[in-house]
């Protein structure tokens, strides 16, 4: 392996920009995160296990990861559909629809949570019709899932859209002159070409959902063992001055989300293996 010094780059400033990047990431990301680890390191092993593996906490992990993954998947599918419609068709009001997609980014999450809760509560506009049918959304797992889907949508749309725009129409034409049906063209040509960006969108939506707090606490009802998400549990512990318990849970969340994101990254790398050299 040649060191960067051996192979001279014509782009100047490698040392400076790398130094800056590392210092910046260290200050903004690593220092706060390592504080969590340092706090936790002061605990005995027994205390740690009690803090992170009590039944109430386990239930919260299950809800947070389960609902976030489900929301990520749903967003991947429907985000693709939205991006497809926005790129491929022109219709009146397209720009407005395009702007609507970003709304979940801009809205304070608490506002979104209150709006969703009032819609889906048993007396709300939508809940009023769903509850008699046996669908309870507000204050259940479904409610958490709905809130997380809402906030995650823009990620998939905004990552897929530019890639879809760049796809040459000739690729689809080539596929059709070779005798492929429309469905074959979509599944064998378009989806594989879009897969890396879909995975990126999924990872972003999933990560966002995992950390989401504001919009969920209103609609979930926060019942321990049932609809309590991990970020809420951490806040609860903090309010009880149980700083160590809170950071211990945070460490578990950190490590497991890191592993999950790493896996998604590997999958993404595999899906773009043809981008050789």
């Amino acid at each position, binding site marked *: 392996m040649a060191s960067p010094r051996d192979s001279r780059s014509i782009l100047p400033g490698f040392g400076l920009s790398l130094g800056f990047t590392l210092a910046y990431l260290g200050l903004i990301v690593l220092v706060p995160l390592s504080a969590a680890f340092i706090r936790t390191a002061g605990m005995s092993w027994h205390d740690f296990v009690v803090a992170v593996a009590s039944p109430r906490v386990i239930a919260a992990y299950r809800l947070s990861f389960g609902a976030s993954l489900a929301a990520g998947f749903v967003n991947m599918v429907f985000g693709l559909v939205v991006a497809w419609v926005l790129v491929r068709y022109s219709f009146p009001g397209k720009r407005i629809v395009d702007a609507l997609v970003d709304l979940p980014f801009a809205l304070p999450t608490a506002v979104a949570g209150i709006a969703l809760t009032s819609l889906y509560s048993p007396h709300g506009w939508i809940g009023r019709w769903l509850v008699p049918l046996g669908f309870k959304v507000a204050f259940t797992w479904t409610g958490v899932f709905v809130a997380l889907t809402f906030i995650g949508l823009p990620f998939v749309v905004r990552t897929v859209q530019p890639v879809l725009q760049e796809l*040459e129409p*000739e*690729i689809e*034409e*080539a*596929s*059709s*002159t*070779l*005798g*492929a*049906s429309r469905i*074959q063209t979509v599944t*064998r*040509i378009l989806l*594989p*070409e879009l897969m890396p960006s879909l995975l990126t969108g999924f990872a972003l939506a999933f990560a966002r959902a995992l950390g989401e707090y504001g919009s969920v606490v209103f609609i979930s009802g926060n019942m321990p063992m049932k609809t309590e998400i991990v970020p809420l549990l951490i806040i609860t512990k903090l309010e009880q001055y149980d700083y160590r318990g809170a950071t211990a849970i945070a460490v578990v969340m950190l490590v497991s989300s890191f592993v999950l994101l790493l896996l998604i990254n590997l999958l993404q790398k595999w899906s773009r293996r*043809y*981008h*050789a*050299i």
Partner: protein
Amino acid sequence: MSIEAHGIRKKFGAYTALDGVDLNVPQGKLVALLGPSGSGKTTLLRIIAGLEFPDPGSGRVLFHGEDVTDVPAGKRRVGFVFQHYALFKHMSVFENVAFGLRVRKRSHRPTNASIAERAHRLLELVQLDGLAGRYPSQLSGGERQRVALARALAVEPKVLLLDEPFGALDARVRKDLRRWLRRFHDEIQLTTIFVTHDQEEALEIADEVVIMNKAHVEQVGTPQQVYDKPASPFVYQFLGNVNVLRAPALAGSLRRGLRPDEPAPDGQIFVRPHDIEVTPHDAGGSGLSAIVRHIHAAGPQARLLVEQVQTREHVEVEISRSELTDLNLRVNDLIRLRLRQTHSFDEDYAI
């Protein structure tokens, strides 16, 4: 298989791409659609492929006498090669070539073994068998274009259509590849149409050239026919360098050199640079007096830019290097020009 198109019209909004175009390509020929950009040649090719459809009720496309106007691209059995290759980036070279066979209905699909055999045979044919496992991003432009060709041939097309197949390649590769295409065509004898805006390319390899301009076909013929007997000023100018002289300039001194059916005095005379003879001015005789303004002697032929004394029109002349040496020309020398062969189109025919 022969290809015919009758009365094809195509509009994109207010823009007319094809205005009643007829085309007839006999079985097994290599035909060039030649024209400047915007002449409608690519649209015509895409209509033949079924990627575009003629305006309703305007015309018909026939393959071997059979009407295919409403048949979709996938059912026409055409091999189409795109200017920018349009390879499937996420598939290896081998999978690209095999794609057309893999997407067939189960009942028509060859076995995996015979798909592999056919794909490798095609890759051998385009001299790329060693690269079967590579991805398109690892290939050069010329290699990609040959993969695209192999992919198009895999479905055993009855017609091969190439849209500016060499347009995205550099000059050297382009020349090699077009000669290769000619030999390749002689081997497989597949009716082939290719679109190009490069007259040299069309004249060099096509059996027949269809020259298009502004949504119309200007002329159809063998390369020699269209070069020697251009049907219109456009064709004449498009097929090579040309000097356009106003006829009054030729009055007097030059008239003797022209045939009796010379054009009206206000018409234009077309003459190619290599059809002009240069003699020293003091040698006397007939001819246009002109002054040498620039001598460009790098290359197989020497090119002179001269200015007519009478009209101040600039004329380009091509003479051999040895003639240049014999004449011992310098810039600002006075010379005489004699036109060996001229064309005029005032009455719609060539002189």
